[in-house]
């Protein structure tokens, strides 16, 4: 039983870590604020969730479990709200998104930040 | 020696950054941000100071023997409350400054003050001339 718990937890944690790392990388690689926001979204949702679920699996007490659930719920509530508010503020204050050309598809995108 | 006082260096760096913001920025909100940073650096200093080698966070639990020194934590809890009160008060002042001056830039505000000062002076002067 312990092994099942450990393995499933480890798996969750691994996936979560990978997603979070990916999010971080995306923050660096994406060309403008709006695209970076999507990268951050990855980490906020599934990344956090996987890590917290991983922890829930190995958690010992009921209260600990509940608290982890709480953190998860808070994250889910807060994440989109901040993203939305941030994007809205950025757009309203005149930050133009860089847009790709639909016809160019994968081949070409607009010039990006180094 | 450098590593032994690692926490000090961090604290000093944060403190200097905070002070720099307070002094260098004309935007009142940014000044408050700097001030908060400055205060927070001191909180960190206290907390890092409380660390006892081998001791864990001073949250009571059954199977733990050695804790870090809880006193600075307690003190800093108080200080944080004070800090929040300060920040809140400062922000509310800024709101009212914005309402009355229409700006939160130090330069603008001072310009306006100087103007009203000169105006009132010239008014008084003209009064005196009339009197004479």
């Amino acid at each position, binding site marked *: 039983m312990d092994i099942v718990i450990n393995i499933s937890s480890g798996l969750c944690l691994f996936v979560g870590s990978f997603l979070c790392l990916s999010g971080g990388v995306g923050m660096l690689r994406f060309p403008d604020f709006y695209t970076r926001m999507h990268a951050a979204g990855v980490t906020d949702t599934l990344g956090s969730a996987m890590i917290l679920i991983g922890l829930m699996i190995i958690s010992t007490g009921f209260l600990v479990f509940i608290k982890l659930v709480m953190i998860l719920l808070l994250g889910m509530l807060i994440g989109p709200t901040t993203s939305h508010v941030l994007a809205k503020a950025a757009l309203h204050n005149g930050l133009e998104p860089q847009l790709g050309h639909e016809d160019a598809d994968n081949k070409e995108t607009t010039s990006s930040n180094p | 020696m450098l590593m032994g006082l690692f926490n000090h260096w961090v604290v000093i760096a944060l403190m200097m950054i905070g*002070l720099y913001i*307070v002094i260098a920025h004309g935007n*009142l909100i940014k*000044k408050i941000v700097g*001030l908060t940073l*400055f*205060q927070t650096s*001191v909180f960190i*200093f*206290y907390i890092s*100071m409380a660390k006892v080698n081998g001791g864990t966070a001073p949250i009571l639990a059954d199977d733990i023997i050695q804790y870090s020194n809880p*006193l*600075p934590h307690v*003190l800093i809890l*108080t*200080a944080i409350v*004070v800090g929040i*009160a*300060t920040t809140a*008060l*400062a922000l509310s*002042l*800024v709101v*009212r*400054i914005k309402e*009355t*001056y229409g700006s939160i830039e130090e330069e603008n*505000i001072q310009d306006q*003050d100087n103007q009203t000062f000169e105006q*009132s*002076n010239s008014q*008084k002067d003209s*009064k*005196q001339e*009339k*009197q004479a």
Partner: protein
Amino acid sequence: MIAHLPALQVHLPVLQVIIPLMAAPICLILKRAHPVWLFALITSGLAFVISVLLLQQVMTSGVISYELGGWQAPWGIEYRIDKLNAFVLLIITSISTIVLFAAQTSIEKEIPKSKHTFFYILYLLSLTGMLGIVATGDAFNVFVFLEISSLSAYALIAMGKDRRALWAAYQYLIMGTIGATFILIGIGLMYQMTGTLNMEDLSQRLPEVAQTRTVFTAFAFVIVGVCLKLALFPLHLWLPNAYAYAPSIVTAFFAATATKVAIYLLIRFTFTIFGLSFSFTTIPLQTLFMALGLAGIFIASTSAIYQKNIKLLFAYSSIAQIGYMIVGFSISSVTGLTATLLHMFNHALMKSAIFLALGAVMYRLGNVQLSSFHGLGRQMPFTMAAIVIGGLSLIGVPLTVGFVSKWYLLLALLEQGWWPVAVLILLGSVLAVIYVWRLVEVAYFKEPLSDQVPVKEAPMFFIIPIWTLIIANIYFGIDTRLSVQVAQAAAMSLFGVTP
């Protein structure tokens, strides 16, 4: 009455702080401005009675130590009252009570009706903070009380009618917070070195580690922090506007008490906690403070001469007066410290009277620009006479309190053979003559402006407290026994000299 209740007698040190603290939320319940004013006045009066009893007790039976919550001194928080504390407590509570007497009338025209209750609450909190700073024997507690008094001070200043009050309050907030945080750092470093926050304990343990760099750093932080609060030149920039644009009552209260509390802290930290030998022999504090004090006297007095807003004028004068106290302090002799302590008391009497009188002018005229004072000597004879006597006291004319402190200051300087400084001090008084006389001339020798509506003398609620203070000004200038005796005793005990 309280004196006859031995059970309460023991708790006087903590009651001194707790009573105004508890009174603040009660004000919230009372809600309406008039009963709140009465209640605040009674509270402050009670605090005054307590401080008198404490002074009596200290003078007869020595230091009082009170352990809060029954924890013994180094661990629990100790309230410790010696002669110095009792003296400063007396200054604060007496001025607070007298000033509060005029508060209701004064704020009627300066603060919107809806905020009156909050005004008294903040006032009481500010009083609590100051009393706490002085009463406590715990270094960290000092920080907490300092922030209580400062925060309420910022809010009180921001209540001023002029919009510049907001800007002044903001600036004061920034500077004050930096100052308080510096003190906090210093206290933290001291704690790191000694493992205690109790002042008495600190003073025992600091000498062992006195030669470390950490203690030097701690000392530097504390001193700079206190000097910011003190508005010692060149850290005084926040003060003039804060005093000038705050409601008159607030100015009268703070001008008389806030800087005194800061001076108290300076003395407490240098003399008691770090110790005389550390503060004055290992560090060139003497030269530094002497120079800063003198620079403050001259620069602030000169600035005062050019002010057209009279509150601003006397605010600059306050900075200059702080300079005198600092010079006395920097002499680091019993006489010098006596001079500083005396001047603390005396300056509180002068400035509260002057600023209250300016509050009366504000009440009648709505502003305190120099041009509004034309012919005021005849229209508001009692108010203007009070300002003149207060001004004479600032100059240091004999038979006013100002003379007594100046006398001791000169004596202390001559003891050290510092003639040039003595001359400079006296030249500073000449500057005071100039800035006081600019006002006197306008008030007594200019005809009222043609478009100025004739005004009546200020209401009794102003005249009574103003003249109480003015009479005290003269009384303590003639009967110096109480003030000199207490100041001297406090100074001696700080130097460890037995009388």
